[in-house]
């Protein structure tokens, strides 16, 4: 298993999760966990995914997710999980 964390931040709209998850499914990235809140009308989502069997390279899906975000008006970032794990866990 190779975990990544995808964050989606921006103005709330219909279908954000659907579009992100559709892309993930097409790229064979497995969703392990999703957390989502709305703060002051802003959509804030975090997804933990397993990219071990992804059909594309990290650089490619990371760029494509960012591009997808630009299309639906939110900021999408994909980061390896270790940066969070190292910072917040002993």
């Amino acid at each position, binding site marked *: 298993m190779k975990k990544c964390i995808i*964050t989606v931040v921006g103005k709330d709209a219909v279908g954000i999760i659907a579009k992100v998850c559709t892309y993930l499914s097409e790229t064979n990235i497995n969703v392990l*966990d999703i957390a*989502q*809140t709305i703060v002051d009308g802003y959509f*804030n989502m975090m997804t933990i995914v397993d990219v071990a069997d992804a059909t594309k390279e*990290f650089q490619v899906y*990371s760029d494509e997710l960012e591009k997808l975000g630009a299309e639906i008006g939110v900021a999408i970032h994909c980061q390896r999980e270790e*940066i969070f794990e190292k910072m*917040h866990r002993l």
Partner: protein
Amino acid sequence: MISIYEVNETNQMIEQENLDVRTITLGIHLMDCIDSDLKKLNDKIYQKITTSAKDLVKTGNDIEKEFGIPIVNKRISITPVSLLGSAACKSPEDYVTIAKTLDRAAEAVGVNFIGGYSALVSKAMTASEEYLIRSIPQALACTERVCSSINVGSTKTGINMDAVRICGEIVKATALATKDRDSLGCAKLVVFCNAPDDNPFMAGAFLGVTEGDSVINVGVSGPGVVKEAITHVRGRGFEELCETIKKTAFKVTRVGQLVAGEASRRMGVPFGIIDLSLAPTPAVGDSVAEILEEIGLERVGAPGTTAALAMLNDQVKKGGVMASSYVGGLSGAFIPVSEDRGMIDAVKAGALTIEKLEAMTCVCSVGLDMIAIPGKTSSATISGIIADEMAIGMVNQKTTAVRLIPVIGKDVGDTAQFGGLLGYAPIIPVNEYDCSGFINRKGRIPAPIHSFKN
């Protein structure tokens, strides 16, 4: 599992509080390039650097992208050039050819600085080391990426005052050689006492002779993160303040450790150390001075500054040490003037003087750093300032350094512009009473006694 709040906290540090890894520095051992033929020596140096560091920038960029953490600089440190050139260089001009080779190699692999145009002369100088030192003004004027350092003293050997005297002249000559660029050459020249072998930060990085063939050293940063964290404990006691700084330093350092480990693995180069330094930049919200002001000083330089800085520096180390398997380099809060917005403003307001900065260097890393002084300052006065700072390092068994920029053609009231991460600085007044009688004495200051510590 990581929670959304933890993810948001990390990303806020990166996006809003300027958390970054300041530098991945690849140390390259060049002793095997030594040759008595100058051309062969230059060819071998170019070859080894461009081969060893060919993947450095790409590796740094890949890690940056995958973890979403900016890695601001990718740099190279090498074996002190005075050791490499001693068989081949018969004049300062011969050494300049090596500086040009280093510049070409740095450009070829895409790093912004290469450090190690250095001489370690804490006790005495060989003829060859003196050639290197005398070549520095020309070397720094005709190259862009080469950084130079001279170690003129240590706790064990005392201070080589002959080298200190020459260094004052060299700093002045470097300023003159680059006067068309606000004496920028001096920003790439550091004079050290107790220089560490594994420092990843420029301009003082070099790969010491105690190191292996190659090594990855990483410098972390994060003044903005520390400042933001302590805004939440405003008015509370020292216990809470210290705990907050420690926890924040731990988090920042863990990121550095992660990046260092990844870089080491991907390049197949051993990991050396993490340098636990709070390194500011001229950007708003990335300032060590602002942390001190948040702690409770109206302006950095006010009474209490040295104590606040001592506390900050110690807590950063205490938090950072546990987050990394190996700590080294300079490891302490940096207080460069031109690279820290809060320091610049304090100098402009008249709150911060060079004397107060000198006091502050007694309790933190690393010394009188990036301070613009009047261009008319004599070389003896510059040597005097260097000697004072070296004495602080020698007696307190710590690294101290001097990176002064006598800005030719400018005086108190003017501002020097260095650009980029080097920033800008108002010219700070310097005590004009003469010290040449002291500086012109020959020889060295003996090592201090290591007993009777009262």
